[in-house]
């Protein structure tokens, strides 16, 4: 072998399969229409800063058009349609997603910066699985435990984040449609392209016009959508700050609301944990999707007696992470989604250093263009440090130690958030003991960041309310 290392030659996935238009309008009433406003936004590839396309910023008037189209489709077509007929459309969409999975995965990686390994092996398969899963529910709603004749809510206004653009779309649209609602969805301004491709898939599936409307834009468009009088249900995934504003504006209107917000999950490793797999779980917990995961295991709580050994193993493992071109099939960590997010990660990491925590990153060469941040671990973190309390939403891990299970619980729950948690131990009884006491919507045992359409997902406290996924997820779209 030349040199000592087994160098993997670049293995880029071809981007020829995707066809990105120069400009995109809005998808309203089954048609592509121009925005009534002049504002545009350039969606860029965060790995290269190359401009991918110009997308419209929908105005309040555009939002009104979209809600009106959704209302008409709800009243005339989708609401009255029997569940078994709705199911056919959802199954068709699910199959089209599978057929066009490579295209969707490549586009997602280009627009978001996530490695193709993740968009190909995690995001897109889960997207298809969600549509298949909820397609199965569409004609069985009366058996779902929401009364003998549950009714849809009407028009759902849905606002989704940039970290899993297509997957969050699926989490929102699939249950809404299965229950008989129509939707107006606004993807994040930095990652609109897969949602716009999904609009094409809706056309390909002959979905009746107006059942799914996709409008692009930034915060203003989102506000206009959630505050629109014609919206019966608001579903939002994103930051806790915006979630608070939405809760305020929706209060007293009679609109139903589900919020899936931030997190600062504890990943708790006991001294009897399967160490090699725990290291994998820690890596997967915080470096999966560049740490742009609301349920990321961003706080590692490790039992003091094994802290040193575990950290040695973790650092050795981190040195093998491959950071770089998201389209390279061997990339483990891709690009940070935006310059703004990169600034935030840098600022909080600097705060970690300033507050006295010890910062470490493996030697790794970052590309010159684009937005990049090396996988980072902070040791000697105190519970009072900002990096132990605030959501960083980047590949930055804060390590704290504990002595007893009770102390682990105390520290894990000592956060305003409560979205997820992890427990690593070979002792089954301790897993159950911990799961009972952890104030988090999801507790993973000896694994982390596992998702399944049949499993409900959602938070405690400032991580939001309502559940998405599983039978529980239907409840958010029925009355």
């Amino acid at each position: 072998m030349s040199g000592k290392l087994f160098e993997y030659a670049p293995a880029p996935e071809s981007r020829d399969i995707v066809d990105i238009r120069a400009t995109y309008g809005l998808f309203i009433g089954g048609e592509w229409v121009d925005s009534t406003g002049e504002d545009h936004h350039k969606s860029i590839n965060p790995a290269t800063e190359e401009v991918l396309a110009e997308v419209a910023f929908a105005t309040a008037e555009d939002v009104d058009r979209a809600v009106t189209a959704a209302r008409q489709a709800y009243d005339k077509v989708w609401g009255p349609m029997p569940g078994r007929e709705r199911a056919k459309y959802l199954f068709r969409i699910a199959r089209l997603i599978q057929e066009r999975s490579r295209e969707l995965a490549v586009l997602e990686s280009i627009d978001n910066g996530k490695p193709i390994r993740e968009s190909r092996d995690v995001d897109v398969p889960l997207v298809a699985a969600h549509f298949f899963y909820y397609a199965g529910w569409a004609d069985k709603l009366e058996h779902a435990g929401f009364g003998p004749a549950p009714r849809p809510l009407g028009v759902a206004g849905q606002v989704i984040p940039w970290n899993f653009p297509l997957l969050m779309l699926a989490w929102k649209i699939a249950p809404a449609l299965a229950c008989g609602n129509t939707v107006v969805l606004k993807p994040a301004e930095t990652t609109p392209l897969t949602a716009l491709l999904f609009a094409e898939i809706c056309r390909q599936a002959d979905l009746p016009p107006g059942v799914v409307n996709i409008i692009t834009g930034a915060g203003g468009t989102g506000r206009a959508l959630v505050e629109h009088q014609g919206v019966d249900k608001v579903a939002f995934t994103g930051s806790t700050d915006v979630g608070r504003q939405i809760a305020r504006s929706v209060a007293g209107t009679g609109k139903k609301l589900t919020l899936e917000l931030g997190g600062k999950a504890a990943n708790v490793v006991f001294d009897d944990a399967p160490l090699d797999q725990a290291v994998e779980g820690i890596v997967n917990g915080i470096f999966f999707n560049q740490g742009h995961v609301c349920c990321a295991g961003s706080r590692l709580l490790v039992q003091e007696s094994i802290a040193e050994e575990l950290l040695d193993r973790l650092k050795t493992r981190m040195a093998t992470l491959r950071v770089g071109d998201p389209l390279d099939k061997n990339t483990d960590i891709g690009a940070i989604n935006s310059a703004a997010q990169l600034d935030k990660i840098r600022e909080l990491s600097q705060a970690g250093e300033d507050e006295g925590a010890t910062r470490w990153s493996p030697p790794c060469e970052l590309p010159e263009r684009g937005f990049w941040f090396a996988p980072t671990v902070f040791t000697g973190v105190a519970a009072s440090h900002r990096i132990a309390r605030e959501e960083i939403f980047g590949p930055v891990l804060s390590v704290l130690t504990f002595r007893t299970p009770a102390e682990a619980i105390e520290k894990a729950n000592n956060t305003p958030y409560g979205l997820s948690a992890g427990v690593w131990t070979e002792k089954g009884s301790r897993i159950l003991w911990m799961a009972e006491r952890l104030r988090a919507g999801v507790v993973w045992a000896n694994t982390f960041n596992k998702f399944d359409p049949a499993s409900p997902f959602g938070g405690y406290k400032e991580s939001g309310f309502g559940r998405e996924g599983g039978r529980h997820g239907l409840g958010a779209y029925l009355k």
Partner: protein
Amino acid sequence: MTAEPIALDRQGVDDIVSSAASLRRFLHGLPGVDQVGAQERAARLATRSIKKSAKAEAIDLAISMVDLTTLEGADTPGKVRAMCAKAAHPDPSDPSVPRVAVVCVYSDLVAEAVRALRGTGVGVASVATAFPAGRAPLDAKLADTRRAVEDGATEIDMVIDRGAFLAGDHRKVFDEIVATKQACGDAHLKVILETGELVTYDNVRRASWLAMLAGADFIKTSTGKVAPAATLPVTLVMLEAVRDFRAQTGRQVGVKPAGGIRTTKDAIKYLVLVNETAGPDWLTPEWFRLGASSVLNDLLMQRRKLTTGVYGGPDYQTLD
């Protein structure tokens, strides 16, 4: 990482193996292996995409790591000679193809193989100790081993007593390995765990440590006579064991998956596993081997595809 101070010196090892109870305590004190997690990690590494120059290098490396094996009741001197010729010159039309590491035969055919391979640089490995079951008196196992070494075997592939291991008699397994190692003299000792019979990854990790503490130069997954033979997760667990063993004792032990490795793709998956688990120090024939026979032809076919751009078809590969 930086070189760690040695945590387990000669005295430490002696203490561990001083009694059956302390040996058991040590082996059961090793961190557990989560089955789902280990399988997931192996599966994820199997998605690495090794192309172009990396593939070319990987193929040559894999060829040089092959323990070309025939272990049939029907083996004859003629069959062994033919295989030896192939081991020395895997592709007679292309002298740039590296030779394989060793040929691996039953102990009564060692002399034949040694004669056939003289001067080629290819070593001779012999299975011994009542391979594959290992169900024979220790005297017979040691006689088997000594004879193979006397006939010129440079490596001995022994099997452990799985019955004793599963019965919890770690000490017996340990003593047999020590005795066989002594009988080997200068020959390298590979210890076959027969992971398909140990079943759990916890057992695989304990048996790996047991073999290494007893002096194994290599740990090997399987005889090839029991299904499942080598798998990626089992090899992952063994690679973690040799990595940890070196970190604690300073002594490096090799790994050999055997059985079930048939294609170039399979072989490359194992190399990726080595690279990202134990590390590049193990990526030489001295420390990693592939126990297989049919994989060689596939490696040659893929190699020729890379150099000429076309597949030659099976008739262009010799069948020995």
